[in-house]
C-alpha cells in the first residue's frame, strides 16, 4: 500500500488549524459566559433600587414606571429575565402590572418583531419570552409556528407559550389539536401546560371528558385528577365503565378521590373489578375515609385473591375502631381454612405482638385491648384470670 506522507503532513496542518480555531471558539465562549455573569452581578447592584421599587409598588394603584436610566442590551436581557421570574411568581392584578411594564419597556414589540421575521432560534427565544409576558397578540403567530414544528423540546416551548398567552378557549383547543397530531400520548404534559393558562381550564377539561376522542378524554381526566369538584364526579362516573383501561382507571381515581360518600353498590362493584390495581385503589381509598359504615364492604376484600388487596383491607379494617376490628377477626375466622384466612390470621397476630411492645402509648394500648379482645372472642381463645 502506498502512503503519501505529504498528504498526511497537509492533514496535520489542517487538523492543527481546526484545533486552533475550535480552541479559540471555546475560549471566546468562556469569555462571553464570564462577561455575562459579571454583567448580571453588576446589574443586580445597579438596579437594586429599581427592583426594590417594583416589589414595593406591585400592590399599589399606580402603574409601574420604567427604569430612569437607559438600558444596555445585556441589561435589558437581565431585566427581562428578572421580570419573567416575577410574572411567574405573581398572579392576578400584580401579574397584569408586570405585563404592562414589559409592554412599556418595549419587550413585547421587540419579541413580536423577532417572532415575525427572525431566524428559527430567535423565533423560539421570542416565543418563550412572549409566553412569559402573556402577550395575547402573539397567539396567531405562535400557532403558525407550532404547526410547522417537529416533535422536539421546542414544540413544548411554543405550546406552553400559547397556553400562557391564550385569551380564548379556541386558542387552547387549536394548540391541543396540533400537539395531538404528533400521536405521542402527551396527556400529562398538555394538562400541565393548560393549567398555566388564564383561560378557564377546568371548564375545558369538563368539556373534553364528554367528547368521543379518547385523547381528549385522557387530557380532561388528567386535568381533573386533583380537583374534588362534585360536577366532575358526576361526569366521570359515566367513564367508570369505559372500555379503555387507562381511561377507566383515571375515572375511578377521580371518583374515589372526590371524598364524596361513596355508594356501597359502586364500591362493591369496584372491589369485584378484574384489575388488581383498581381493587387495591378502591380498598385504599375506602380505608382512608375511616368510616365504619364501610366495614362490611372492606370485610369482603379479605377474600381477595391478591395479597396486596388483603393487606390494604386488613389495614383499613384495623383503623375502623371496634367495628372494623370485629369485622376483621370475623372475616379471618370465616375463611380460616383457606390460604387467605391463614394469612390474615398471621397478620392479626403480628399486629397484636407489635402493639404489645407499644403499650406505653395510650392509643396503642386501646388498640391492643380491642384487637386482642375480638381476636380471642372470635377464635375462641380464653384468658385465664387468676384471682389472688
Amino acid at each position, binding site marked *: 500500500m502506498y*502512503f503519501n506522507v505529504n498528504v*498526511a503532513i497537509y492533514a496535520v496542518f489542517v487538523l492543527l488549524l481546526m484545533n486552533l480555531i475550535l480552541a479559540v471558539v471555546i475560549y471566546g465562549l468562556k469569555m462571553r459566559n464570564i462577561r455575562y455573569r459579571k454583567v448580571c452581578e453588576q446589574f443586580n447592584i445597579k438596579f437594586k433600587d429599581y427592583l426594590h421599587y417594583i416589589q414595593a409598588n406591585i400592590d399599589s394603584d399606580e402603574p409601574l414606571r420604567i427604569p430612569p436610566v437607559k438600558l444596555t442590551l445585556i441589561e435589558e436581557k437581565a431585566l427581562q429575565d428578572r421580570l419573567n421570574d416575577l410574572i411567574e411568581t405573581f398572579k392576578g392584578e400584580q401579574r397584569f402590572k408586570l405585563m404592562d411594564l414589559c409592554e412599556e419597556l418595549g419587550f413585547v414589540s421587540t419579541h413580536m418583531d423577532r417572532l415575525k421575521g427572525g431566524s428559527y432560534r430567535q423565533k423560539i427565544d421570542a416565543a418563550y419570552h412572549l409566553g412569559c409576558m402573556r402577550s395575547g397578540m402573539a397567539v396567531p403567530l405562535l400557532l403558525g409556528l407550532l404547526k410547522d414544528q417537529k416533535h*422536539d423540546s421546542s414544540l413544548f416551548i411554543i405550546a406552553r407559550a400559547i397556553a400562557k398567552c391564550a385569551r380564548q378557549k379556541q386558542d387552547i383547543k387549536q394548540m391541543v389539536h396540533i400537539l395531538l397530531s404528533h400521536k405521542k400520548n402527551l396527556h400529562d404534559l398538555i394538562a400541565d401546560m393548560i393549567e398555566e393558562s388564564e383561560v378557564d381550564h377546568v371548564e375545558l377539561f369538563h368539556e373534553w371528558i364528554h367528547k368521543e376522542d379518547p385523547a381528549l378524554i385522557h387530557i380532561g381526566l388528567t386535568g381533573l385528577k386533583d380537583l374534588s369538584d362534585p360536577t366532575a364526579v358526576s361526569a366521570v362516573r359515566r367513564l367508570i365503565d369505559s372500555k379503555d383501561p387507562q381511561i377507566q382507571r383515571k375515572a375511578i381515581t377521580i371518583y374515589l378521590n372526590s371524598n364524596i360518600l361513596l355508594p356501597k353498590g359502586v364500591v362493591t362493584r369496584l372491589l369485584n373489578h378484574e384489575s388488581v390495581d383498581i381493587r387495591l385503589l378502591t380498598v385504599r381509598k375506602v380505608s382512608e375515609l375511616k368510616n365504619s359504615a364501610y366495614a362490611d364492604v372492606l370485610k369482603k376484600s379479605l377474600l381477595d385473591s391478591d395479597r396486596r388487596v388483603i393487606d390494604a383491607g386488613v389495614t383499613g379494617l384495623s383503623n375502623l375502631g371496634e367495628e372494623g376490628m370485629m369485622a376483621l377477626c370475623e372475616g379471618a375466622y370465616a375463611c380460616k381454612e383457606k390460604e387467605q384466612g391463614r394469612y390474615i390470621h398471621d397478620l392479626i397476630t403480628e399486629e397484636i405482638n407489635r402493639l404489645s411492645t407499644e403499650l406505653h402509648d395510650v392509643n396503642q394500648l386501646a388498640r391492643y385491648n380491642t384487637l386482642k379482645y375480638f381476636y380471642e372472642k372470635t377464635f375462641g381463645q380464653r384468658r385465664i384470670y387468676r384471682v389472688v
Partner: protein
Amino acid sequence: MRIIEYYLQKDQLLNGVREFLLAYGTFAMYYVLVITVLYFVIFGLSIRHSFPMKTGIRYNRLNKLSGSSHVPPVSLLVPAYNEELTIIENVRSLLALNYPEYEVIVVNDGSKDGTFQKMIQEFQLERINPFVSNHIKTAKVRGIYHNPEYPKLYFIDKENGGKADSLNAGINLAQYSLVSTIDADSLLEKDALTRIARVYMENPEETVAVGGNVRIVNSCTVEDGIVKNVRFPKKLLPALQNVEYIKAFLGGRIGWSAVNGLIIVSGAFGVFQKDKIIAVGGYRGGYPGEDMNIVIKLHRYCLENDIPYRVAFCPDAVCWTQAPDTYRILSSQRKRWGRGNLKNMVEEGIHMVFRPKYKIFGMLTIPYNILFETLNPYFRITGLLAILGYWMLNMTEWKTLVVFAMVNFLSCFMLSLGALFIEESVFSRYPKLRDLNKMLLYSFLMFVGYRQIGVWWRFRGHIDFLRNNNSWGTMVRTDFNK
C-alpha cells in the same frame, strides 16, 4: 552452502514478515480511518443535537414543573454495599430533592461495615411487613425498614447478591411505574429528577429509559448532600477522568441517543420504565456491566416485539460521583468495565450484530462496540508491536511515524475540544477561566500514558473474564469533602 541456505531462509522469512506487516498496516489504516470517521459522525450528531437540548434546558421553567402534579412519580433505588462513609449524606440529599412524588429505596446488599447500623440509627427505622411482589427472584431479604417520619424512605436489608440483585430487590418493592437507579456514592442535583421527567414527559410511552449525566465530585465542596462549589479536581487521576467523562457523556452519548443507539445508561443515575425492566427479567446478576446489559436487553426486547421506543439521554440531569483517585482502585474499576463489556458482547451483542431486524442498534451500535470498544485493546497492542516491527525491519522512517501519530493525536484531540465546546456552549458548569485551562491541559495529558494504560486495563479485564473472575474488585469510599 548451509550458510547460503540459512540466509535464503532468513530472507524468505523476513519477506513473509514484511508482507504480513504491510497487510496488517493496510488493515490498521482502514481501521483507524473508519473509527475516526465514526467518532466524527457521532460527535457531529452530538453537537447538532446539543442545540435543541440547549433550547429545552434554557426555556423550560423547572420550578413550575417540579411543583406540578403531572410529573410522573418515581421510585429511587439505591444499592449499597459497604457504603457507611457516604450513605447518610447520599440519602439525605435524595430526601431533599425538588420533586413532587417519589420514594427512596435503599438496599443494603449484606454490607460488612456499618451501613446497616448507620441507616437504622440515623433515620430511626423500624421493621415493617409490607407486601413485596416477586416479579424478579433475588437473594433472601432479611427485613424491610421504615419510619413514618421519613415517609419517602424505605430500607431493605438483604443477603449479599451483588448490585444487580439489590436493584431487583428494590424493583420488587417499588410502588411507582418509573424506577431510578442511583449509586450510593453519588449525589443527585436537586432538580435532576425534574429534568429527566421533562424529557420523559415529552414522549412518555416510547421512552423506556433516560440516562443522566455523571460528573466528578472530587474537589467540589459538598454541604448537606448538595454540591455547593463546583471545582475542577485537584488530583491527577480524577482530573483525567473528568475530561474523559465530559468527552464520553457530552461528545458520545448525546450523539448516540440522537439515533436511538445508546448502549448504556450509567448505573450511577438513570430512569427506567419498571414494567419493561420486569419484562426483560430484571438486572442480570453475578457479573459487572449490569447497566449496559439492561439497556441492551431493553433494545432487544422492544425491537423483537415491534414496540416503538427510545433510550434517551438528558445531559442536564446531573449526578455527582466520586472518581477513583488511586491507581489501584482505578485499574480495578476499568478492569471491571472491560470484563463487563466483553461479557455483554458475548452474551447479547453477538446475537444482534449486523442483523437488520435490530435496526441501528444491531447495524451500528453493536458492531461499533465490538470492533472499536471490546476488540480495541487487541488492535492497539498489535498495532504497537507492528510499529516495532516496521522500525526493526527498516520498513518505515521515524518521520512517517511521527506524521501519522500527529494525525491520530490531532483528530482525537479535536474530539476532546468538541466535547469542551458542548460543555461551554450549553452547560458551562465550571465558572472559572483556569478550569478551562486545566480541562485543555488534561485533554492533552490523556494522550500521554492515560489512554494507553486504559487499554492495558481493559486487556487485563478480558484476561480476568477468561479466568472466570467475576468479583467486583477494589472500591474504597471516602468522605465527599475529602
